């Protein structure tokens, strides 16, 4: 009897162990290091290290560039998430029909996801190269002077477009799967009752797609925050004049280009906080309105 009780106490920990170790090693430990480092002021090689409490944070909040990066991140992630989701939904609803060659369309729409973000960045960079690119040539003919190497708004537009293009396939696959799992009978019944295509979409399809949409919203926001690093690095490197420097890119450029490890760690700590808040908000307020 005693042994059995002992086993019962140990077993849950044993079973949880691997997961806990993974979390500890790959999440808690690095996060702890980042928070510790965010309170240090040191030279690049770590020779002289001083504990300075929150000075790195004060320095950040005094920096106009940091606030500008917040603004850029907000514009960028909202644009990427909304455009990416809306476009994918449009494509999915149009592809979810019995058309000739629908299978081929679907495969083609999934392709961009197979392209790594950095490669996507290089491709878009070729297309829009102000000197040699194809599209700036046509844009010039239409009277648009395209040069994203100087014009910050154009650069932001370009990274948003590239990021959406790269992510739209992923959203498309999920939306398509969501659409296909909606019972045909519901839609046909509505059609018999005289509901037009618009009405059918907003009253039946959209609410039933909401769980998929919510999941994609979370994934897309995280993608816009972190996954777009490769695209930005390959396309603009955060420039011109920091107009495409989102928070995660600033962490990288201050840390690895500037060797300001304290400041960079402080930014990661803040970024971590933002992600926690965003996730809580999403699950507490938005998820409540969704019926599974």
């Amino acid at each position: 009897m005693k042994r059995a009780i002992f086993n019962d106490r140990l077993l849950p920990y044993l079973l949880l162990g691997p997961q806990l170790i993974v979390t500890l090693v790959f999440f808690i430990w690095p996060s702890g290091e980042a928070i510790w480092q965010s309170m240090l002021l040191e030279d690049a090689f770590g020779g002289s290290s001083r504990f300075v409490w929150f000075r790195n944070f004060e320095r950040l909040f005094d920096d106009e560039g940091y606030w500008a990066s917040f603004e850029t991140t907000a514009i960028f992630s909202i644009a990427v998430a909304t455009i990416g989701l809306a476009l994918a939904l449009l494509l999915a609803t149009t592809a979810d029909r019995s058309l000739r060659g629908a299978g081929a369309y679907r495969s083609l729409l999934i392709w961009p996801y197979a392209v790594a973000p950095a490669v996507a960045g290089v491709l878009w960079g070729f297309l829009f190269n102000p000197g040699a690119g194809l599209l700036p040539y046509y844009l010039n003919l239409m009277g648009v002077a395209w040069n994203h190497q100087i014009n910050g708004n154009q650069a932001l537009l370009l990274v948003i477009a590239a990021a959406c293009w790269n992510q739209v396939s992923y959203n498309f696959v999920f939306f398509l799967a969501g659409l296909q799992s909606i019972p045909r009978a519901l839609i046909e019944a509505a059609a018999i009752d005289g509901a037009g295509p618009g009405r059918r979409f907003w009253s039946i399809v959209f609410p039933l797609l909401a769980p998929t949409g919510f999941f994609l919203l979370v994934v897309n926001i995280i993608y816009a925050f972190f996954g777009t690093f490769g695209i930005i690095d390959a396309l603009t490197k955060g420039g011109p004049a920091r107009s495409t420097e989102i928070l995660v890119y600033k962490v990288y450029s201050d840390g690895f280009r500037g060797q300001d490890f304290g400041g960079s760690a402080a930014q990661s700590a803040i970024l971590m906080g933002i992600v926690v808040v965003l996730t809580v908000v999403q699950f507490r307020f938005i998820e409540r309105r969704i019926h599974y």
Partner: protein
Amino acid sequence: MKMSRILAAVAAGVMLATSQAALAATEIQWWHAMGGNLGETVDQLAAQFNASQSDYKVVPVFKGSYTETLTAAIAAFRARQNAHPHIVQVFEVGTATMMAAKGATYPVHQLMADANEPFDPKAYIGPVYGYYATTDGKLLSMPFNSSTPVFYWNKEMFQKAGLDPNKGPRSWQDVGEMGKKLVASGAKCGFTPQWQTWTLIENFGAWHNLPYATGENGFASTDIELKFNDTARVTLIQALSDWSKEKVFVYGGREGKSTAMFTGGDCGMHIGSSASAAAIEKALGAEKVGTTMMPVWGDTKPQNSIIGGATLWALQGKPKEEYKGVAKFFTFLSRGDVQAKWHQETGYVPITASAEGITAQAGFYQKFPGRDIAIKQLQLNAPTINSKGLRIGNFVQIRDVVDEELEAVWAGQKTAQQALDTAVSRGNKLLKDFQAAN
């Protein structure tokens, strides 16, 4: 039992083999950032050194861009697992960072003295040596690849514009006039510079004997302030901004991106690194490329230009006897014939006067006219406190700031005065941060 015996035998064999290898040659790790053709030349240099003696084996490892190489070395050093290299190649803007890292770097003058390796500072070309030496002339890192900006023009486009194809501009006013004629003859752009912060701000200052920062451009002190928002530089940037309206000046992006506009035949004039010479001649055809010294503003007498590029830093924390190999390798790299080969194959300037002599005697400059402009420009006059070089903390970020502010001028959002004033005040903040951290 049998199994463990076999294992032991294998282990003993492996140990024997590795210890023999260790007896044969001590490995010297060298992390560098030279890709492509340059990387091949680096491998050849290491192979030549390894073949010349049997005590040491230099192992060159390509680590990506300059920033990536530096970051990799810093990470390896901080991990304290003895995985860091003996030698790391660091670009010139990282000099202040490396100097501040006391206990991590091994100054060359000290390394050579500790290893009893003969070393003569006078053998090196002044502006190359001075950039990496202390104010009292002690060398900190080994100059390796150094270049300086020179002026290139397209002779064919000059001819088409009715200009003398064999005569480049002497002054910036000439650049403006010639640019207008080029554009009038159908060129898409008159002039575009490479590495605008290095060519238009840093080198323009040295060339006109103007300070970049107080405290002898940072050589004499770390408590310094930036000074590059002076009238001369504001005038130049404003002129370029005005010219950009008629395409006499066109901005082609950061770093070396704009060179494509020159080699593609869009722009007739270019300021670029002397190390770009080989690539430019290859793209346009050597007979179409004219090379001359950088222009001056008005009738100013030019001083001397400053270098860019990278040096080799020795890192601390390796066994003492291994540094003898590092010292021997540095001596090898400074040899006249080695430098002459490096200079001729890459377009980087030689770091010793004897390499220049060997190259000239071989008739290289007759075959490739213009390749000697860089050395002539560097040695035009004895360097002053304004033209010796730059030693600025957080320099990578300060260059980013200057790039950003100049881009604001080219986009028409700011005047030259506003942009340079902001660049100076933002840069001064970064200098204060650097001072606090080191």
